[in-house]
């Protein structure tokens, strides 16, 4: 992750009161304990920092392997990703690419606003 990307993502995460962690290799943000209404009270979610961020839009989300939310939330499960010592399952969830959120604009959107998309995602059955 370049210093500029790290500075930007860190600044975005400082804007939210939720517990988060920025990890590297792969570059990603982990949101801890996001609330859900789909059979579990909360879940951790990992979101990859796209190459070329922030112009490249944030897209997709990953749930912990064996999460009961996989197959329940919107989006097709895909491959697995190892990050921060855990295994995550990638879910094809695309809020800013026709998925209901406004078109991506890096002067307004970022990991701080993606939190809202994730909270709504974890509360709507597919």
């Amino acid at each position, binding site marked *: 992750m*370049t*210093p*500029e*990307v790290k*500075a*930007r993502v*860190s*600044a975005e995460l400082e804007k939210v009161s939720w517990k988060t962690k920025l990890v590297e290799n792969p570059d990603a943000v982990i949101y801890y304990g996001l609330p859900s209404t789909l059979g579990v009270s909360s879940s951790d979610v990992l979101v990859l920092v*796209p*190459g*070329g*961020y*922030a*112009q*490249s*839009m944030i*897209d997709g989300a990953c749930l912990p392997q064996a999460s009961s939310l996989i197959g329940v939330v919107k989006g*097709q499960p*895909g491959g697995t990703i190892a990050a921060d010592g855990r295994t995550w399952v990638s879910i*094809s969830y*695309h809020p*800013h*690419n*026709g*998925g209901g959120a406004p*078109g*991506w*604009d*890096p*002067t307004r959107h970022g990991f701080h606003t993606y939190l809202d998309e994730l909270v709504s995602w974890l509360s709507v059955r597919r």
Partner: protein
Amino acid sequence: MALRQKVAPPAVLRITGAVRERLEALIFSRYPDKEWATFFLFGTRETPDGVVITVVDLIEPKEGDLDSTTSIVRLNEPYSLRSALEKQKRGLCVGVIHSHPQNCGVFPSALDDDMDSYFKDYFPAFGKEGAYFSLIFSRTAEGDIRFSGRGWSVDRAFQLTEMVTVSSDVIQREYAWAKSSSARNSANECQARLEEVYGAEAAARLRNAHVTIIGASGTGSPTAHALARAGVENIVLIDPQKLGKSNLERLHGSYNAHFAKGEEEAPLKVEVVRDLIKAINPEANVTCIVGNILQPLARDHVVGTDLIICCTDTNHSRTAVSELAYRYLVPAIDTGVVFESKDGLMTGEIGRITVYLPGGPCAYCLGLVDSWRATVELMSEEEKERRRREAKEAEKRGDNAGAYWKDVPEIPTVGHFTSMVGALAASYAIGWLTGKFTPPNRYFEFNILNPDFDYVGFDARSRSGCYCEKLIGHADQGAHASLISAPPHWPPARLV
């Protein structure tokens, strides 16, 4: 670290015309005999060769901040503390600018040494930023400005060598007093005609101008060609590609001879354009970067130039140059070319010119960035392939395939028109660098196939609260709001 170093790396000061005007009105307010001063906020970008500092704003003195009973500058403690707290709050750097009396030199006095040795340790203690700069200005009875400056950033010392002032009607590069005579390039005979039209001062300004051209192909090469013939002697070229045979149709300076050893052995586009410039003016100083404007090596070279001309017509370059304009005070002229056809006939050969400058709207404010296209431009081939595969699977499931992948059609362009738009960009660059003329609008487009060229032009404003309004001059200290970065799959940029 010694306060006076004989040879220190160079520093370039960048300032907007509006701030410069306020600065001069303030520090010369007790002229011709008495000095005056102000603290100022600035951003920085340190490069391997030196540093660029960008003036964000003045922290103007209030009543009692400076001692008005003496003819020299005496800064009172509440003023320095107020400035230090402002620095800490805004995550920027603080320096001081003061005047010397009319017709006096601008070399630091022993009192200036005392002041700087105190402030260079005082201000870095507030907040994270460690740079401090001290500038001295004077004005002759004829109105000529002289200046000098020095600065420190953690373990490096710098000497101010140049100042670039950017306003909407002129971009002016001036040299620090100690270097004033040696730094200017001598007259160029090729400029005789240009001198007749625009005058000797304009010709000198072009010789001393530093211009970046992003993209060395259909639009970038004629831009470079026209600027070289106008006498611009310092050019940075940025392009990642090798010359291909199809480029012969539009790349100025390319010939069949470049493929004498086969297409595999063809030169880089930046080398072809460099050779074209050098063939016109062997004295030209051309820096060739094989890479992309998003990469740090390119940025290190671009931030010291007067003006960028962006000739790639890509969303990521457009975003990058519009961000460089407000964060680093490097203005830009961005070009675009579109062809349209119907029933086998051309209906549109459309050119677009956009001017980005500090205080003006960015590419997002103007609605000139397509988010999906921008994302695709920065994707690796592997990711594009994966997304195409996922789109096919989504289609089979009856899901929205467009959420995974949408094709982005490439629109080909041809040489006669890219040459025209490149020459147009060079024209406006010449006008801006000499202060002789400006484009009719900061954004305009035209279609050469229609009556009156279907001209559409406007001068828009920034959206309220946009970064382009809030981060003017923040340079590297505005990284927390950077709009774009180089994706990791790109090969590293290099100089050739």
